[in-house]
């Protein structure tokens, strides 16, 4: 599935008008076909579909749209539509996020909800529709908890506070909503949890030498080089020896597609939402090139200006958990990938040196979550060992 996002068309406007759809909702369009007409304050431009497939409108003609906004999806013809539940048809009711979640939980269709004839559909309306008792909202908390770092745990905290607050009943809505970005995260992690039997192995890695090397590399590359850059490089260089870690397992659970190159997705969260942009060809890229790419991605994350191409095509993911005191993080394996590497904050550690005397070194916990259908614990440990060695002496 590809997304059609609104590009930045000029520097003056921060919103445009979706003048007209050039291809109707549900129609198959070839790659490169013009699909929409967008009016800026200066001109009218056409947007085209980057990939061919079935066009799914996600905004109505006449709507105000902003750069970066996804106005349509293009479903792969073979794969069929993947998103559920479908948002309301144009002109239908406004359905709140808690209501949508409840619909998905109870398997209620948009048509049934539209038949209510209400302009706004809240969670309570869905409950009323089925006579179901309101369900607790924190039911996903335990999954989420193990999945990612502090930010999601925060969300869980909020949910709990809200549930117990007195004001909640007065407001008639007991749930805290997820942001749009977080809802996208939620879809991905839920799909991962549902389809990938993941296992987890972690290793303590000495990063003292790497951190000493970093300032020099930064000077040479004239871009920041830190653990993120060094681990992307290490993952890239493990591609030749551990191809399975980069492979994609088909939905049939048997057919494996090895990857010709290492394309490493890296988590970037600057508070504007979680993104996983890709460093392409990390197996051949120099550390300078990796640093340049990541810098560009961070700038895009700060401004929310990613192009879809920046976010597509990873075959392995590096999740960074460098906030002080994070000592363990279990990443999820992204659908379509086999491995996800988690790197936590470096911390000093006391150890006994060769002569049995106590000394300190700087270590980090590096974890590998992997699709157990594709590789086993032994391969996971070898992959981690390869990373540890490359990071120590590239």
């Amino acid at each position: 599935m590809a997304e059609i996002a609104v590009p930045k068309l000029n520097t003056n406007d921060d919103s445009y008008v979706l003048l007209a759809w050039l291809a109707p909702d549900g129609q198959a369009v070839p790659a490169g076909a013009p699909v929409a007409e967008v009016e800026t304050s200066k001109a009218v431009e056409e947007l085209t579909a980057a990939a061919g497939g079935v066009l799914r409108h996600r905004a109505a003609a006449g709507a105000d749209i902003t750069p970066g906004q996804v106005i349509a999806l293009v479903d792969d013809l073979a794969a069929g539509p993947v998103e559920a539940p479908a948002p309301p048809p144009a002109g239908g009711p406004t359905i709140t996020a808690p209501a949508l979640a409840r619909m998905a939980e109870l398997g209620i269709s948009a048509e049934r909800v539209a038949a209510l004839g209400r302009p706004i559909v809240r969670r309570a309306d869905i409950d009323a529709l089925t006579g179901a008792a309101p369900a607790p909202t924190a039911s996903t908390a335990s999954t989420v908890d193990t999945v990612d770092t502090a930010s999601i745990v925060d969300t869980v905290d909020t949910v709990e506070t809200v549930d117990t607050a007195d004001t909640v009943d007065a407001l008639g809505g007991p749930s805290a909503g997820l942001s749009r970005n977080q809802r996208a995260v939620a879809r991905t992690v839920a799909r991962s949890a549902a389809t990938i039997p993941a296992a987890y192995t972690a290793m303590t890695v000495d990063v003292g030498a790497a951190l000493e090397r970093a300032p020099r590399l930064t000077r040479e590359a004239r871009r920041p080089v830190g653990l993120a850059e060094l681990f992307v490089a290490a993952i890239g260089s493990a591609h030749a020896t551990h191809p399975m870690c980069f492979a994609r397992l088909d939905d049939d659970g048997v057919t494996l597609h090895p990857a010709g190159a290492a394309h490493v997705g890296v988590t970037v969260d600057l508070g504007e939402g979680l993104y996983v942009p890709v460093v392409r060809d990390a197996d051949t890229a120099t550390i300078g090139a990796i640093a340049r790419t990541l810098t560009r991605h961070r700038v895009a994350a700060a401004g929310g200006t990613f192009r879809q191409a920046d976010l597509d095509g990873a075959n392995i993911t590096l999740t960074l958990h460098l906030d002080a005191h994070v000592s363990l993080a279990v990443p999820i394996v992204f659908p379509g990938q086999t491995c996800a590497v988690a790197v936590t904050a470096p911390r000093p550690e006391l150890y006994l040196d060769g002569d049995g005397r106590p000394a300190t070194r700087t270590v980090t916990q590096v974890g590998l979550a992997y699709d157990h259908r594709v590789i086993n614990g032994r391969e996971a440990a070898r992959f981690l060992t390869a990373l540890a060695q490359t990071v120590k002496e590239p």
Partner: protein
Amino acid sequence: MLPALVDAPDQVRADRAAMLLIRHFETALLDLFARGELSGTTHTCLGQEHVPVAVSGLLGPDDHVLSNHRGHGHYLARFDDPEGLLAEIMGRAGAVCHGVGGSQHIHRPGYLSTGVQGESLPVAAGLALHLRRHRPGALACVYIGDGSWGEGAVYEALNLAALWHLPLLVVVEHNGIAQSTPTGQAMAGTVAGRAAAFGLAHTRITGTDPAAIRAGLAPLVARVRAGEPLIAEFHVPRLGPHSKGDDTRPAEQVAALPDWYPALAAAAPELDRAQRDRVARVVADVSARPPAEWTDR
């Protein structure tokens, strides 16, 4: 007239290099805008590059420069720091003012620009007053366009400068237009006439060869340092739009304006290429930098 190879070849080369650097810098900015990689606004000094190149050669380290909205050339001629300036305009690490001021609000010791027309004249007079006491022989140099002579503050400052014998050098970049308004529709009389009204020295410069301009200006600037303010009025073309894409002059009219560049590029093709490449490298380098951070609020 081109910077001629007379008896100071190094100086000539430096002048040419500075003019070409400014030209390629400004062209690169318009290009970045066109590609949507810059936001905000910018005012390029295409056609006016020789003014700050000539003037900066007459300034010493104790002198103070006040610049305006069209200030990239003023800055580059004084500091040869395209990286810091571009980073400021793009809001990237290494920005002269941490990305806060942007194109028209730049400050470094001895240098300041602001985007409010006319505001800088009284400030320059104040700096000149300070310099006269604490750095005798130093001057305050303020760049101002012809259009900004509409502001009353300009005249209040000129009056004081004349009365108080301030070491104030007013560099007028008279490009015949202010945004979209031709000077003839905005200025009754002339700059020279206004200078005369205050009993201020005035000189009019039309050439583009920095060395020749300096030769003519040097004795007058020496008098500024001794407390005799000067209005140096440069007649220049504005080859580009006011900011970007907002030129309402007919294309033929703009095309007919004189431009020093083709002759210099033909006379010094290697230097031209070197400066073009330098700017391209600066653009590549700065574009890849992380966003500027603003900590000292």
